[in-house]
């Protein structure tokens, strides 16, 4: 083995820096042979300086608008905003599992509920701080998701969907009804943390936590972790051939999703200050799924809009509350049958514009092509 390469990490440097006439010819030959079917690559000119200013300015204005919104609404509406933010946290959690990992979850309310009851118990029964409750909620949510992940190693597609559904049912009817832990039917109290008892303050607490989670989600996609999870979803065999530990990364996807769900559960509980098992029913699980599907699986922005929409829509149109559930379900069916990419697909041109591309009509964006109808067996 004396002839092994000296510099293993940068083979290309060696090649390019020590060209041999004869060998360069070989490469040229390959290039020419493959040139024939090559498509011309259109170089997109980037936006002008003014274009960048406009894009960044508008983006900043939107973000500030959202952040300042609680300042201009009444007390009741503040509470609605925090509700929407909690849903977005849960939406991000589901998106990791369904959108990134391609594992269907119809029992996500179980993870959210585990987090909610954990946090409530820690604060009300153990008299510890909200922050410890929040952390432990993330931990127990991860534990609950890990259990399901172990099952998912054996089962996939429809069977996994069935198990998750059953898991949710059992969690709601049995586990969340153990009186010693959850207060039984009466529910558990979950007071808000000191300093955040007001509705306005709680909104900003949600904003902070959501910002942290969105950062983690962003890094997830841009690191080897997210790439491994994508690769496993699309082609398990190829993923393993690139040295990815398929078993470990499947479980990691469940755990990360579980942490997000648990944290979402904790916020869910402390926002309403009391939590009962009936909160975590099957209809809620379906709402969670349909808000990410309608928002656009795999797209962070789409999930944000979809989740916030499904949280706010019944509250804002409460005069038509009879119909909001129906409209949501119909939107889901419409999305699945006509626009599998959801809201993200619809707003793709705008998102691309923010990224520096000229504003053009519809077309599939990168996001859709990678996430797309990521619900697959």
């Amino acid at each position, binding site marked *: 083995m004396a*002839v092994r390469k000296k510099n293993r990490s940068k083979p*290309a440097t060696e090649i390019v820096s020590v060209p041999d006439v004869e060998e360069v010819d070989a*490469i040229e030959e390959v290039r020419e042979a493959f040139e024939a079917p*090559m498509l011309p690559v259109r170089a997109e000119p980037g936006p002008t300086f003014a274009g960048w200013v406009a894009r960044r300015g508008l983006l900043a204005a939107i973000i500030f608008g959202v952040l300042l919104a609680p300042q201009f609404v009444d007390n009741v509406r503040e509470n609605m905003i925090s509700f929407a933010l909690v849903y977005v946290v849960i939406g991000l959690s589901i998106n990791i599992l369904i959108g990134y990992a391609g594992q269907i979850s119809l029992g996500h309310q179980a993870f959210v509920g585990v987090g909610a009851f954990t946090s409530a118990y820690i604060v009300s029964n153990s008299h510890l701080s909200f922050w410890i409750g929040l952390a432990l909620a993330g931990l127990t949510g991860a534990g609950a998701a890990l259990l399901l992940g172990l099952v998912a190693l054996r089962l996939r597609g429809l069977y996994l969907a069935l198990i998750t559904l059953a898991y949710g049912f059992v969690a709601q009817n049995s586990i969340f009804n153990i009186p010693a832990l959850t207060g039984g039917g009466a529910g558990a109290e979950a007071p808000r943390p000191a300093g955040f008892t007001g509705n306005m303050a709680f909104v900003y607490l949600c904003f902070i936590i959501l910002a942290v989670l969105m950062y983690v989600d962003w890094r997830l996609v841009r690191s080897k*972790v997210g790439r491994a999870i*994508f690769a496993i979803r699309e082609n398990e065999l190829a993923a393993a051939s*690139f*040295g990815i530990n398929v078993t470990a990364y499947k479980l990691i996807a469940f755990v990360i999703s579980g942490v997000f769900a648990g944290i979402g559960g904790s916020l869910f509980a402390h926002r309403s200050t009391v939590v009962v098992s009936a909160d975590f029913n099957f209809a809620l699980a379906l709402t969670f799924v349909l808000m990410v599907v309608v928002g656009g699986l795999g797209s962070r922005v789409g999930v944000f809009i979809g989740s916030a929409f499904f949280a706010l829509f019944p509250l804002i149109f409460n005069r038509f509350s009879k119909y909001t559930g129906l409209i949501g379900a119909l939107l889901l069916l419409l999305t699945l049958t006509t626009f599998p990419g959801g809201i993200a697909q619809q707003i793709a041109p705008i998102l691309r514009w923010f990224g520096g591309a000229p504003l053009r009509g519809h077309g599939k964006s990168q996001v859709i092509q990678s996430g797309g109808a990521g619900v697959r067996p």
Partner: protein
Amino acid sequence: MSVLEVRNLGIRFGGLQALAEVDIDVREWEIVGLIGPNGAGKTTFFNCVMGVYKPTTGTVQYRDEQVVGRPTHERVRLGIGRTFQNIGLVKVLPVMENMLIAQHAKARYGVLSGLLGLRASLEQEKVLKDNALEILDFMGLVDYRNAVVASLPYGLQKLTEIAAVLASDPEFLLLDEPTSGMSPEEAHAFGDLLLKLRTELNLTVLMIEHHVPLVVRVCDYVYCLNFGRLLAEGRPEEIRRHPEVVAAYLGEEHATA
């Protein structure tokens, strides 16, 4: 010494004996061909070497290590790279993403560090990206780095897969029909590329290949499988004239080749 030493390999699927008593050696710096008619068990053999299937009998030794029973991803970390007949890339993602996925094992940072975006992970990501660009540049694919793999012509997808596998720094390559879907000119050019890669990167190669002129030109040694058993082995010219091989394989598909 042998890079790959397979002894008495056999695998059964239910009532079907897919492979039996297969002995194959690949020595340092060799390009070895594995040929045989469709359904002869060539890809199954690859899957046994990579740990996708667990063989019923026999041993697989890679350099000094017995690898039977070890999961695929661990075998890859020993320095084995593999390509697939139908392209082992994530086709819905851009070329660049695939180049990064391929370097998974080289990314030296923890999961938590990646999720929190700690500096170690960001620096590593930059190294991986630079490395990917270098290899893409070398392979003449750098213009396609942002193109979704599925949108590329088939030949380029094949080339991209090779680029991705090279990015993972392999010492030993298993290529599954690298020239399928290529024109004769492309296949010829591919042969030159392979020879060059071997010289430059010190690669040892075992490849499944149907394209006989390519096998004769680049391979140092050839094994022929038929119905899961070794039919013949030898130098390419010998194999090409071997009566049983001609009857079983060349006879039906490449009589005029």
